[in-house]
């Protein structure tokens, strides 16, 4: 199982005018399923091509299992590819498509058959070996593409939007099947996608790129709970950002003053933070972290205050519900805070919240929001394109 290392890799196009990879250093551990994500034009496809050896870096080194990729012939690099558009030969049967690479490389018939059937079994398509592509459904076509990549017996798999052509109803179960397959074979795999949810669901690690740079590289949980920028916080999941300034800054806490004359409340800060009194900030809460408290409920809570000692501290703000939408598994609430800010909350519909449209409520904010410096260009930070 190969380990891939990039050291100070830079790639420029158009005589240095376009910087597609900007001094990138990273390590992909063997057996990891890594996703490359970012807005279009961020350099993710270039990075994939560099790692696959389809492009040479302008400077820097790429090592695969300690060996310089530049010293290995492309045909010896042992890499399997899966593409969004399948690239299946329409005039060949499923078996012939999967066997093609081996036939070209002059394998003997017995080996070809054994390896191809084994690969087709893994993708559960061994009952369709003699079918032609036009007889197959879209997911089956992509399984042929997968089987063909597996049949190269590469230890590294590169996938470029492999599920992009599938309907959501099929795509969701298929992505878990894809991960099971990659894990069963113990492959190192790198996938490009524009679907954040897909990356979160099946990646071991995610690389978020913007403008040729790596913004953050970590597990889905790292990126979701500890984003290092407004951009990353906004890129994964749904986040409500509140604007304001801070006072009473200590080494691990401050008072946050919500803008437009909103109330103030205490929030915790990460150790080593660089915020100063008076700094303009944006604080972020995920939609599922927004608590909605009915007024009568909050009155009960006050009267039982002694029982609440162990509960985490909750800051509450007066608000009204402008919409309550049932979406099946979840329920979504659009809420207007007393200062006029509009935020959203999302909760499991299993807890049949009877909060209705038009109702006055309290919104609870816990004291551990994501806290960011107010950016120079907020629109750019919040744009995903």
């Amino acid at each position, binding site marked *: 199982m190969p380990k891939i290392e990039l050291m100070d890799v830079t790639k420029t196009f158009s005589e240095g005018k376009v910087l597609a990879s900007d001094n990138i250093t990273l390590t992909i551990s063997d057996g990891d399923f890594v996703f490359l994500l970012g807005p279009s034009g961020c350099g993710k496809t270039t990075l994939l091509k560099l790692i696959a050896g389809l492009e040479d870096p302008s400077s820097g080194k790429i090592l695969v299992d300690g060996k310089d990729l530049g010293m290995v012939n492309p045909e010896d690099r042992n890499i399997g590819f899966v593409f969004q558009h399948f690239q299946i030969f329409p005039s060949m049967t499923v078996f012939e498509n999967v066997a093609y690479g081996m036939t070209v490389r002059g394998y003997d018939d017995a080996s070809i058959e054994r390896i191809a059937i084994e690969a087709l079994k893994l993708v559960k398509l061994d009952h369709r070996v003699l079918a032609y592509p036009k007889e197959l459904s879209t997911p089956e076509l992509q399984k042929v593409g997968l089987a063909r990549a597996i049949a190269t017996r590469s230890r590294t798999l590169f996938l470029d939007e492999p599920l992009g052509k599938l309907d959501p109803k099929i795509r969701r179960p298929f992505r878990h099947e894809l991960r099971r397959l990659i894990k069963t074979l113990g492959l190192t795999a790198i996938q490009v996608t524009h679907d954040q949810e897909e990356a979160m669901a099946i990646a071991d690690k995610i690389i978020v790129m913007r403008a040729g740079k790596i913004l953050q590289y970590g597990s889905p949980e790292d990126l979701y709970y500890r984003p290092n920028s407004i951009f990353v916080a906004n890129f994964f999941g*749904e986040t409500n950002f509140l604007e304001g300034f801070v006072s009473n800054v200590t080494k691990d806490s401050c008072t946050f003053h919500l803008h437009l004359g909103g109330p103030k409340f205490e929030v915790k800060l990460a150790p080593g933070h660089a915020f100063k009194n008076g700094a303009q900030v944006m604080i972020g809460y995920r939609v599922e972290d927004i608590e909605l408290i009915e007024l009568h409920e909050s009155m009960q809570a006050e009267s039982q205050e002694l029982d609440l000692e162990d509960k985490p501290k909750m800051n509450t703000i007066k608000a009204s519900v402008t919409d309550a939408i049932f979406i*099946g598994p979840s329920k979504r609430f659009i809420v207007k805070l007393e200062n006029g800010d509009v935020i959203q909350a999302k909760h499991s519909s299993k807890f049949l919240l009877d909060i209705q449209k038009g109702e006055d409520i309290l919104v609870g904010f816990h004291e551990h929001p994501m806290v960011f410096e107010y950016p120079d260009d907020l629109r750019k930070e919040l744009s995903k394109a």
Partner: protein
Amino acid sequence: MNAMPSIKLEDITVTRGKRKILEHFNLDIKNGEYFALVGETGAGKTTILNVISGLIVPEKGRVLIDDVDVTHVAAERRDVGMVFENYALFPHYTVYKNVAYSHRVRDRNVEETKKAAREVLSLVLIPNRDDALPKELSGGMQQRVALARALMTDSGILLFDDPFSALDAGLRMSLRIELKNLARDLGTTVVHCTNDVEEAMMVANRLAIIKDGYIEQLGTPDEIYFRPKSIYVASFFGAVNVFKIKITQIDVTRGYYFGIHERGEQERKEFGIAIKDGIPEFKVGDDALLCVRAEHCYINKGFRKKPNRIYGTIDEISFLGHILRFEVKDEFGKRYVAKRFVNEKTYHLQFQKGETVTLGFHHKLALLFNYPGDKEMERLEQNI
């Protein structure tokens, strides 16, 4: 604009080559309704829109708009607004010219056109970009321009063909809410096609699940989710755990079906399911298909033997942000999925891969369907 027209499709048949896309298709959309058509690619959603707009004239059947037969009225004279997935803006026209297009081809008064264009552009929040070309705008902005253009038409009907699929998740979410509010404020009748059932649930008053050119189910979001007519409809919302059970007892007074799932010598699971609206009638001895949505399965540590429980070990945990998805394998190798809503406070209640757990579900949240046959059952079990 005529506010709130109704739309009626009566016994529509559309064929392409030898294939019947729609056959004896009926649909009744009330005035002012926000209606969604949900289906997979190729189900016939776009054909239905094209029949309403007049881009396709059906071989059989009638199209009525506000009870007037428009079956043979040309598309441009039906004048319904359309918004497509790929925006379909004229690339060499400015924002203003794109929006004013329908008025210009109908030789409307210039001042009137200007006023109307200004109004719709400010409605969709694109002021002051009249002279920009589409390529200078982001995807979200282009789709707003397309929406503004659609709003310039006179019929009070808007047709949306997967309008957000080219946009990223965050933008999609905010535009959905805007669109819903805008349609409500304007009193427009909307038909919205999508393959994303959550999108449909967010925007629509009623929705129809379309499969192979027919309506599999039509209802409010609440009905579609809690009383799906078939496993096909139920599984639109994500993973559904399935069991073949034999009905062993019916308790009418307490309102329960009791059943067992048996396979081989060893495997035996007992279930109790509340009899509620929409569940078919069964006799003792009948086979049935029991379905439990992944989000209705709760997961607990350890082993508790009781009805409506499954024991197994955790095979995989996926983090989806506000949801943790667990894959659990029982001792017979069968796979189940449970989803749990989490947030920063509850996330730490972690489970480990390989840990023994019990999955359970509430008897009121289970779904029962007629048994679909062994072959289909096998497919359903594999697709979890």
